[in-house]
């Protein structure tokens, strides 16, 4: 996992006070960009990644050698057209692809942080990434957008910086992490912690790796990203390279084999402690509570134009939770559009080839951008 790849990174010298009370200094923030910033610097889009995403939005991911996580949406001529827009994406702090995270070395102890890393929040992630605006000398972004945890960062960004993005597109997300979602995250964390190789988070210093635990965490989470109908249609009860049941605990069914593959591929690219830290950040996210139970207050005085998007089969971040955001914005007369896209691909819909979603996104961006130019 620590294979050397070409990662662009800033060292943020401005101290960042975290919500937990600790302050981080001179920390790395890894990022990637696509397209080019125009002279007026008005075509920048900051994309926030989801739980297991990274800064490699499009093109080939140099680590996995696979397509970037949002290749369907971002690229030349695509919904987020890199011929037109300057796309920036950073690895979140707490992550494991170049930004400061639990797999970094603690300068005080000279050992890998592990669980000595401070707890971080969505707010901390956003504040760290805000430094990118200074670095690129961008006064105002054209857009901030992201799905799932990326959408939470969009909401937090606009709340923290009400005049720093013309357009905000939170997709398949929530303003307040639900009990069900905290429960699923806890399942994943307990799975990692139950692996003896986790060694109380000190596995890297002990040359161990809690791959089994992390893999099971990913398998469980992956189910929540799909829908019942989607699974049934794709796998049904189809058997894996066999004609009949084997009366054993082998992967008889294709769905079992698929999930095992998802789990084992994941451990090659992700750090178990990062998984703990980032899921914790999601659980702590509650923009409504942060504003004394009134979500509208999070967006008071914002001039940002919002587009909220949800998917019919997403039961992890259902339409009802996305609509809460719309309702809060309408209550204060903010500029908010909303569509619920028909798809049987579950929460993962935003990452996949869902033409109605991608076309709406493309047209909305292009029309909003050209209207802004006048």
């Amino acid at each position, binding site marked *: 996992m620590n294979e050397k790849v070409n990662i662009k990174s800033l060292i943020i010298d401005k101290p960042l006070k975290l919500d937990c009370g600790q302050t981080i200094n001179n920390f790395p923030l890894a990022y990637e960009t696509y397209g080019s910033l125009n002279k007026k610097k008005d075509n920048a889009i900051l994309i926030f990644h989801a739980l297991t995403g990274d800064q490699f939005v499009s093109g080939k991911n140099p680590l996995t050698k696979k397509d970037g996580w949002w290749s369907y949406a971002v690229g030349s001529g695509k919904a987020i057209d890199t011929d037109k827009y300057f796309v920036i994406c950073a690895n979140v702090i707490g992550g494991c692809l170049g930004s400061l995270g639990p797999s970094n070395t603690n300068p005080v102890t000279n050992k890998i942080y592990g669980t000595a890393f401070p707890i971080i929040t969505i707010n901390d992630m956003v504040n760290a990434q805000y430094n990118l605006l200074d670095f690129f000398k961008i006064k105002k972004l054209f857009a901030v957008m992201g799905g799932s945890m990326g959408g939470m960062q969009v909401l937090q960004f606009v709340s923290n910086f009400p005049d720093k993005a013309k357009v905000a597109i939170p997709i398949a997300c929530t303003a307040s992490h639900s009990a069900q979602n905290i429960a699923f995250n806890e399942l994943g964390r307990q799975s990692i912690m139950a692996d003896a190789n986790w060694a109380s988070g000190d596995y890297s210093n002990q040359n161990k790796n809690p791959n089994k635990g992390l893999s099971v965490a990913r398998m469980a989470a992956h189910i929540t990203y799909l829908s019942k109908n989607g699974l049934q249609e794709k796998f049904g009860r189809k058997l894996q390279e066999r004609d009949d049941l084997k009366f054993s605990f082998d992967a008889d069914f294709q769905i079992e084999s698929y999930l095992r593959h998802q789990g084992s591929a994941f451990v090659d690219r992700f750090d178990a402690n990062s998984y703990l830290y980032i899921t914790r950040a999601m659980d702590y996210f509650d923009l409504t509570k942060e504003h004394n139970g009134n979500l509208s207050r999070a967006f008071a005085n914002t001039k940002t134009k919002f587009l909220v998007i949800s998917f019919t089969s997403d039961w992890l971040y259902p339409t009802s939770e996305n609509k809460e955001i719309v309702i809060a914005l309408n209550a204060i007369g903010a500029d908010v*559009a909303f569509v619920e896209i028909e798809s049987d691909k579950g929460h993962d819909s935003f990452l996949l080839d869902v033409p109605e979603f991608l076309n709406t996104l493309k047209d909305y961006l292009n029309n909003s951008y050209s209207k802004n130019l006048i």
Partner: protein
Amino acid sequence: MKPEFKIISDFIEKNTRVLDVGCGDGTLMEFLQNNKEIDIRGIEISKDNSQKCVGKGLTVIEGDAEKDLTQFPDGSFDFVILSQTLQAFLNPETVIQELLRIGKKAIVTVPNFGFWKVRLHLLLKGTMPITKNLPDEWYNTPNLHMCTIKDFYNFCHDRKIKLDKSLALHNEKISSINELNLNIKNLSAELGIFLIER
């Protein structure tokens, strides 16, 4: 541009906040946005149309006006438009009340079921009328509560809803409706256009 839209546009003052309820594919919204300096929003029930609107960069939320208007605070719009949609609601009376709650004024247009061609169709053919404004069969029409110009006029009167303007439209010809000519307009107009307030 449809004469109906032109009239609606004339009702709307500059620098106002406007909501188009049942905005369809956003044609009226675009027309108003291009011709008036206003802040316009829309709400639309069909997924296809909502996506078209959003694709045009319009501020439209996908939703059901019978449930989702509650999220808008009292008096949050200067004008609320309901163009040829009233008859499609399960509960038109509640919708009108909601329009007048969230809007300082409302513009409501109704396809007139009292139009002579409609009446003649039923009288002579004995089947449910099908006209230019009412193109669907009885079994697949979205129109649950058809009314006439006179019905709507009386409705407003009974509920003490102020009729600021009442216009009748027939073949691009616009005329005003009043107490005296109500029966004639109810026979001769295809569409009634009303500017109302509480």
